[in-house]
């Protein structure tokens, strides 16, 4: 229950850089079946800011948020305590049920969650059913939600089972270019002045831009299943096989993300270019040997492999008429390769033990 509607969240348009993070959030919105986004990065890289700004832009309210110190009654559901104490039992929905209604469950610092809470989330996320058998309640509630999580890998890794529940993963790094850092400072100081200096108009341009992007994304979501994926089905399986992705969860995620990207661009069909753009997001945390919790390597040779697999590009497709095309993601920055560790991944190798 909110006691203050003005949380002063930075407009999404004012989030500087972090293009891969923004792309992942937008794709997950366009195609909820992707299964959510995990954002891994060091402190101060605008992870939480971007997630909250995106939710505010698209929904006008913050996402259903699971704090790290939540108790299980609030996760699973219980009773309204004050009413119960007056002898008026009234069920109180838990956060998983609320997330099922809104479609997204956001966990800030997801790797800090206590294990028994993680187990509850995993049960509901994997089965699509929230089972409440406690405090005289016995219910099975259908819940479908995407997990959006942010984490700082310095605080420890994520359990592999939970890692696998995220459709896409982004490894964000701090902006180091002076121009980007200056832009960030400018935006945050403007937020300060709007918030404390009585000049809320400083952010109007950003909110206006957010409104336009929201409309464009909503339109793109409506046409998601108008996008043909006939030309990339085999390619998606080929890419997943080349990167030795275990199981079958990676294939549909790559395909769905490519379709969402095509819809975002206003294309009639998803192409190899779209697969190439989304594959690192969908596969980096699914590859064998990928360490838990974001210590995932995506090297330049992986880009080369991906480029080889996705060449030659299929014939150009005609853009659908009468739709507003979002800016094409034609030049995604190459995923940053983590340096090869000097030691074998001692912590990672044993983390799952």
């Amino acid at each position, binding site marked *: 229950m909110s006691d*203050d509607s003005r949380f002063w969240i930075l407009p999404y348009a004012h989030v500087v850089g972090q293009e891969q993070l923004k792309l992942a959030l937008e794709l997950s919105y366009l195609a909820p079946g992707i299964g959510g986004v995990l954002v891994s990065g060091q402190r101060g890289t605008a992870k939480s800011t971007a997630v909250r700004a995106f939710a505010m832009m698209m929904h006008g309210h913050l996402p259903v948020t699971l704090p790290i110190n939540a108790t299980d009654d609030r996760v699973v559901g219980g009773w309204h305590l004050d009413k119960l104490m007056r002898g008026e039992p009234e069920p109180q929905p838990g956060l998983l049920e609320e997330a099922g209604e809104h479609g997204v469950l956001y966990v800030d610092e997801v790797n800090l969650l206590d294990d028994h809470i993680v187990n509850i989330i995993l049960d509901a996320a994997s089965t699509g059913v929230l089972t409440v058998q406690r405090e005289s309640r016995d219910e099975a509630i259908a819940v479908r939600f995407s997990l959006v999580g942010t984490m700082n890998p310095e605080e420890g890794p994520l359990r592999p089972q939970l890692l696998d529940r995220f459709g896409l993963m982004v490894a964000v790094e*701090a902006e*180091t270019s002076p121009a980007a850092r200056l832009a960030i*400072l400018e935006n945050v100081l403007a937020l300060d002045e709007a918030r404390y200096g009585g000049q809320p108009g400083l952010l109007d341009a950003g909110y206006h831009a957010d409104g336009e992007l929201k409309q464009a994304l909503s339109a793109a979501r409506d046409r998601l299943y108008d996008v043909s994926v006939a030309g990339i089905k085999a390619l998606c399986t080929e890419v997943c096989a080349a990167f030795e992705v275990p199981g079958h969860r990676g294939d549909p995620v790559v395909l769905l993300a490519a379709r969402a990207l095509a819809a975002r661009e206003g294309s009639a069909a998803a192409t190899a270019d779209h697969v190439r753009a989304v594959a690192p997001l969908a596969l980096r945390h699914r590859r064998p040997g990928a360490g838990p919790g974001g210590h995932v390597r995506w090297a330049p040779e992986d880009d080369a492999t991906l480029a080889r697999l996705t060449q030659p590009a299929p014939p150009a497709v005609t853009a659908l008429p009468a739709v507003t095309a979002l800016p094409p993601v034609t030049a995604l920055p190459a995923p940053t390769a983590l340096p090869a560790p000097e030691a074998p991944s001692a912590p990672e190798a044993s983390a799952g033990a």
Partner: protein
Amino acid sequence: MTDRARDLARLLAAAALEPALDGILLLDSSPAWFLAAADRYEELLRAAGGRAPRRVILGSRESEDDLWTRLAVRERPDGRRQLVPGPGHLVQGPDDPVIVLLVPDLTRLSFAARRAVAILLDAPVAHLQRHGADREWRPRVRCLAACPAAAIGQASRHLLERLPVRFAAGPGALGPDPVASVPMTAPPGATVAEAVRAATARAVPTVPGTIREQAVRGLPAVTPLRRALALLRLARGLARLEIPVPAGPGQLVAAEHVDEARRLLGLARAPAAEAGASGDSDPVSPPPGRATSGARRWQDLIDEFDARRAAGGEPGSGPGREAVGPPARDPAGTVAAYPGAALPGGTATLPGGPRDPYPEDRRWTVTAEFSYLTTQDQRVAGVFDLRGDPVGTRPATHLRDIAWTPTLIEAAKYQEARRRLRGGRAGPGLIVSPADLMSYQRIHGQRYLLVLVLDYTCLDRVNVAGVLASYLDWAAWRRAAVTVVEVGAAGPAGAGSPLRARSFAARNAHDAVASGALSEPRGGATPLAHGLDLARAALARNARGDRSAALDAWLVVVTDGLGNIPLAASRSGAVSYPLAGEGIADCLAVAAQLARLRSVHSVVIAPPRPPLPEMPARLAAALGAGLIRATPGERG
């Protein structure tokens, strides 16, 4: 009043005017000095916000329920009393005052308190989802923490990042009145609080683009942006303090304010050429009366303050005002209080010597076990253990560790129903059923083990910090116990026979590093076989498989493999010449025993160019270990 006390007053005053500047860390302050600073900070916040803040002291004992939940007794209409759960100390409603979190020792915060600080600081929104409470609010929280600079490695890096405003006090640098009036542009005799109150009537100054650019240029590209923001926000607070009255909109932060903010924080000034360039090219006109040098200007203000006081405007004469002494002056009496402010490394020279406001950047430390914000995993059903921090509750299966708050909440839910069932037979108290009892889930004790075998005769050829960092970080994250085996260290007189290795057990990775391991001088002999045997003894407990054993263990051996002392010589303390490679044979034999231990992962780290290149590989093969070629150390 000392210069540092005066500086702190400025810093707190500027911070009080900047709500987003919510995390301040005092380095090397005494407890009395910290509490005095806390009193002054609250006074300034009251001046800035118009009402007294609420103080919450965070220490080593608070649990989640202490901080986030509270049970209150409520009188019912029928006269009966009822326990009602409600939000705890850290939850705020829209009309509640600002909360000041006081952390006397950042290294001793409880697990729950560490999480609370991370949740509340620099956060646009906070959430409470505990025991039926469902709240979402905008935190209005300030935090004033203290930490010895030498112990900074024991504090959570997560929390340190949220405390970007630093102030180095220095031992013994403050007198009995640590914080007192500071001249701003307030009327003669005005206290800092009055200056802050006056400043709240002025608009928040704008930070021009040139100033932002100067701030970014003056910091390394890898500097966390929170620090750059803290610098600019502090400069903006200082500017707001000294803008003359009346001041209209459109006031700007000037380079002098940034310089002064840098000095207060202990940062080096921006490079001279750039600072000069910004001064020349900055299209922003300084406010009326602004001097050309920030440091000079502050000295001017101090001079002016002294002159006012000499003229009868004694700031310490009014109620609640403190007596102040003359400001410290350099012999020339004309330059800034700390003339040599800038050091190349980014620190400033203070009276107590060089101070680094961010010592966590420079120290090679591992994160201490108690500074992580993660709980240990719960995957193993261990023996019943009352030790460890509570991380949750569950229905009680015994009476030894009852969680009373959740128990009473659980019981309170059903009071009405139970009273009805009992009719008039119920007394006035709470009716508690055995089904209400809840016990704590606690963090388990150490279940992981790291054994380091360090061969000092080759250690200076290895980049030790680089190769061991990941293992020590793993140990810190896992709260692993650490055993260090030292081979071939010279050691002090009486440290033992050079024919023997020695070992010690550390409670955690931080203690292992802090103990001075890795910094011993090299000795002459290399009793590597004995060192491996000591490691085997340490690991043997792990391999027994009983309930106290560690789940997982790592053996890390840093050596070139040239163990020249036979195991028998180490045990007897006497060596028989000539030696014919018995030492190496013993090493391989002990290594083969180690390879048979269960749940032990091993790795051998060799210097870049070992004298006998095949030896590290043979040792690794005998251990069943991986082999790593380290990067060169001091001697390459």
